Every structure is written in C-alpha cells, then in structure tokens.
C-alpha cells in the first residue's frame, strides 16, 4: 500500500513537471547564449491561451502546440531585437513583456474562459510500461513527458557534445572572443532566443492542454514563469541539473497539496506561494556554498562535497549585457 502511494506520487511528479521542463530548458538555451528572457511568466500565459484557443477552434492539438511555439518565439523575438540589436535593457523589455503578455492573454482569451476543450491523452509505451516501479512512473504517461526525457538528453548533448553547442557557450561566455573567431554573435544569440522562446511556448501549451487543462482568469499557471527563471539559476545553467530542479519543484508542489489537506484552516493561497520563499532560500544556499569558508569546511568533510558541488554553478559570463561593441553588424 505504502509503496503504491510512492509510485503514484512519483508518477504525478513526472507528469506535473512536464511544462516546467520545457520552459526551463528553453530559458537555459537562451541564457547560455548570454540573453535573459525575463518575460517567461507572461509568455507562458499568452501561449497557453493561444494553444487552447487554436485547439478549441480547430480541434487539432498539433496546431495548438505549433501556434503556442510561434507565440513564444514571437515574444522572445521582441526581447531579442530590443536587447541584441537595439541595445536596450533586456530586463526592462522582458519585464514589460511579462505584464503585457499576461494582460493580452486575459483580454484575448476572455471568450474562451471556462470552456471544455481537447486535451493531451495518456499514451503508455507498450512493454516498457509493464516494468515494475519504473513502468508506471516513467512510461505510463503522455507524449509530452516522453518528449521531456528526449529533450533533456538532446539539449545536454547539443550543448556539450557538438560544435554548435561549443559556439553557443562561447557566445554567452565571451562574445568578443567568439566574434574574433568568426562567429556571427548576434545572429547566433537571436537564434537561441527564438528557439528558447518556442520551447517556452510549448510549455505554455502543455499547461492549458494537459497539466492544467482549459483557460480562465486566473489560469493556474501564474507565477510559473518566475519559478522557471529561478530554477535555471538553481540548476547552474546546466540542462540536466535544471531539469532536476523542475522535478524537485514539482515534488514540492505535491507535498504542498498534502500539507494543505492536513491544515485545512489555512487558505490554499498560502501554500501556493510556498515555492517562492523556498526559491529565495535555495538562492541563498547557492551563494553561501560558494564561500571560501564553506569550501574549506567541505574539504575536511568529504561526504558533503557532492552536495556542495551540486549548488555550484556559474552564470554565463556576459549574461544580460547588451552587445554594445557593434558585434557582427
């Protein structure tokens, strides 16, 4: 009985993390190239709305996901053009887009509120889903979850195993040097901003077509964009660690639900914000784990080294800085 509960819980975590995994991987790609797309919270909502509206009108899930990916890329394009080519503050543009896309989603999505539309259905993998323990957790899911697994591996291999990935990292670490080596820095950055935005768009669609089906004000995905941005920092801009962060967060969310059942007198909204203080706490932990004193302490206590190392992670060196040096223009 107890074991069964555990399996159900883990399966729920894997399913619940699906949209976040898309979003954090997308943002990791963007930030690795040295650009911050702060607009995630609004982009997620806007693409969730677009996905639901398109699917509702056409009946095609594929079109819904496609439209959402285009929406995400379009919003990211604004950040890219303003930040990379026009030298404006990426933070400012991203923040404005966060608010504007959210309001745009509420405004345009109004006619689609509280309607019942098509959803992504579970698609168990034959044979694999009959494995003990792992089967129900990993292979009794929907297509989005399998795409998640695939994407985590793919992004990791792309970044650290291919020449393109090397160029991507070079552009984020040292754009001037990359430029000197003949890389078109701005074009590459724009490319990864678009790709990352498209993935965030898919994440939005995953919310409104699968994890939190339907559209409304509020939709239920509010705040997730900010969480995703924090998870990217938590995962130290490494695709696998970032994905782990998304799963950890989904697990905490599940715990929150069970806590809520224990203290029904506390309003649900209080538990919904629990991730945010946690996010601050984790960021604090990351900061202090990189202090000299902590490292010295860890050297004397070898068991703690893996833990401390997990919290290490450095931002791409030129993250968020406008490419003012007339790179590639």
């Amino acid at each position, binding site marked *: 009985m107890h074991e069964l509960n555990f399996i159900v819980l883990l399966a729920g975590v894997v399913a619940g993390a699906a949209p976040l995994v898309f979003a954090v991987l997308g943002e990791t790609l963007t930030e690795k190239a040295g650009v911050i797309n702060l607009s995630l919270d609004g982009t997620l909502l806007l693409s969730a709305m677009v996905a639901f509206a398109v699917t509702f009108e056409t009946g095609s899930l594929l079109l819904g996901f496609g439209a959402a990916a285009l929406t995400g890329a379009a919003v990211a394009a604004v950040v890219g053009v303003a930040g990379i080519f026009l*030298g404006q503050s990426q933070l400012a543009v991203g923040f*404005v887009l966060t608010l*504007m896309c959210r309001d745009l989603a509420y405004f345009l999505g109004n006619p689609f509120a509280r309607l019942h539309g098509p959803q992504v259905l579970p698609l168990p993998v034959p044979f694999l889903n009959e494995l003990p323990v792992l089967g129900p957790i990993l292979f009794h899911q929907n297509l989005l979850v399998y795409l998640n697994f695939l994407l985590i591996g793919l992004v990791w291999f792309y970044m650290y195993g291919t020449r393109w990935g090397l160029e991507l990292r070079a552009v984020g670490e040292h754009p001037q040097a990359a430029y000197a080596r003949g890389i078109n820095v701005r074009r590459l950055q724009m490319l990864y901003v678009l790709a990352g935005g498209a993935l965030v768009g898919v994440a939005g669609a995953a919310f409104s077509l699968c994890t939190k089906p339907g559209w409304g004000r509020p939709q239920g995905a509010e705040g997730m964009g900010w969480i995703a941005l924090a998870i990217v920092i938590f995962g130290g801009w490494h695709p696998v660690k970032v994905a782990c962060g998304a799963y950890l967060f989904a697990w905490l969310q599940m715990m929150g639900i069970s806590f809520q059942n224990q203290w029904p007198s*506390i309003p649900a*909204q209080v538990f919904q*914000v629990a991730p*945010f203080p946690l996010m601050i706490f984790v*960021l604090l932990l990351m900061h202090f784990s990189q202090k000299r004193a902590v490292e010295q302490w860890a050297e004397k206590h070898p068991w703690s080294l893996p833990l401390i190392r997990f919290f290490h992670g450095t931002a791409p060196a030129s993250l968020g800085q406008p490419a003012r040096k007339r790179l590639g223009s």
Partner: protein
Amino acid sequence: MREKSETLKGIAVELCMSLGVVLAFTTAVLLLAKAPPLQGYRYLLEGSLGSWTKIAQVLTVWVPLTLCACGLQYTFRIGLWNIGVEGQVFMGAMGATAALRWGVGSEFPLLWLVLSALAGALSGGVWALLAGLLKSKGGVNEIFGGLGLNFVAQSISLWLIFGPWKRPGIASMSGTEPFPPELWLPSLEGWRVSPHALLFTVAVILGTGRLLQSTRIGLALKAVGGNVRAAPLFGLHAGRWMLLAMVLGGGLAGLAGTFQVTGVYHRLIPSISSQYGYLALLVVMLANYRLLWIPFIAFFFAALNVGSIQLPMMLQVDSSLSGVIQGALVLATLLVHGWREKAAERRDAETARRAGGERHA
C-alpha cells in the same frame, strides 16, 4: 540615462511614433477581440475623465502609483531593480491596519491616523530592507528576492484576513471588518479622494526631486549607481547606500499601502495593492527614469485603469485592456528610442568616415 539626443524635437518625434504604434496595436487587439475600437476608446475616455467623480477616482489611483514611482526613483538611481514594490505596498497596508486596529475606540483618532502612516512606512521599509539585505549579504538577485517577497507578503495578508483579523462571523475575500469613519482619512464632500493624500503626494514629488537633485544623499546614490566599483574610492560604502535607497523606496511604497487602507478601502482587502507596485515600474520606465514626467504618466496610467473598469459591462471584453495599452506604450517607447539611437549612431559613423576620407584626400 539618455542625455545626448534629448532635444525637444527628438522627444516629440519619438512620442508621435510610439503613440502611432500603440494606437495601431491596440486597435488590432480590439478588432481581434471583435470589439468596435472607436467605441472602446470612447468608453476609456468617458470612463476616466467623463465627470468629476471619475476624475476623483483617477486621482485615487494616481496617489499610490505616484508614491511607488517616486520610491523607485531612489532604487533605480543606485542601479537596483526594486521589483518588490508590490510586496512593500502590501506590508505597508498591513502595518497601517495593525496600527488602526489598536486605535479603534480611541479618543484621538487623528493621532492613530498619523501612527498608522508611520507604521505603514516602517513596514514597507523593513520589507524592502529585507530584499536589500538578501542582495548585499546573501547574493540573491534583487529581482528574485523582491519577487519572492511579493508573494510572501501577499500570502501573509491573506492569512491575516482569513485568520487572526477575520470578520466576526465569517472570513471572506471582502476583507477585514471596516474601520469606524473617524479612522478614515477625511475626504471632500462628494469626492472620494482625500485631499491630504493628494497634498502629501505632491510634497513627496517635490521632496524626492530636492533630495535627488541637491543633497549629498542624491549625489551618493548617483555615484554608486554610476559605478559600484569606483564608489569605495570616494569613501562611499556601496552596500549601505543601496540599503538606504531600498528603505526609502520601500517606505514610500508602504505609505501607498497606508493610503489604500486609510483613504480608499477603510479596511484590509486581499487585492489592497491592485498591482500598482508592478505598474509603477512601467510608469518609471516610460518616464525614462525622470521624476518630472512621473506625475503626468502616472495620471495617464491611472486614467487608463479607471477607464477600463466599465469595459466588461459595455463591450463584454476583459478590463485588462488598460494593461495591454500601458505595456505596449512602454515597449513601443523603448523600441522606437533604441531604433533612433542606432540610426543616429550609424549616421555619426558615416560622417566620421567621410570626414576621415576627406582628410586623406
């Protein structure tokens, strides 16, 4: 931030271009929602400036928006992104409510109103200080620290409304028990807006201008904001000045929350800040971080907010249209400005090259 190209003509050209872009965009959005655009604009205008009552309502929104925007002047000047204004407004409202709860039934209601303002400013300031300490001591980026604290402040207020401060009988989203009228900030006959709050806000605008322009504090904030690494060379402790800027900004946001309680709702409600904290950031950006423009832009934004309230009833569309217009306006301004700057840069480079060529010839 943009000293060079800021001639009057340049501003006018950029303004016209941005407004054109926003008008086209908003019209497209309205058409997409199958709402008649002209009627939409008419309702926005009539709903905000159509009568004295409406204008008073706009001014009620203008007060917290301007206070928050003035507070942001300090933090932006020193180079901090104080995204936590929203939470600071919440904390201010809670601080003020706490003070007023003590003062119910007191013989000196005026004293308690003053005390509530102090408590509100203090609570907002402390909340901002927390975000500042997280940044300076804990290495937590102020965007994430501030944002996290926003959600925390919001949930504290929900907990208070549904828990310790709940209405006798049943707790509800309509907020705490309203205060007796002697603890309300007095307002003029027929107007819902408090003249005290208006006067105070004007004083804050003037005070902020004076502080930033012609005191040592303003100079220090600017110096640290201009170059954090060079600041210690002039004997400026960057971390401490950042904390001061945060406290000043948070204090003003807290006062905005106080006025929401004492002057507008006369109780604590779950949406006490009405997202003015986030909107204030847009106001400051559109004002290009200049104090002079803030009161006017804040008034315009407040008018949009008030004007859009009746849209759901009249046109069956969502009231978030105001947010779309405000966002589009800031975005268009940033893009147009960036584009013109780039064009000017290219022209300069061209002239320089030509001049160089002539010298060679």
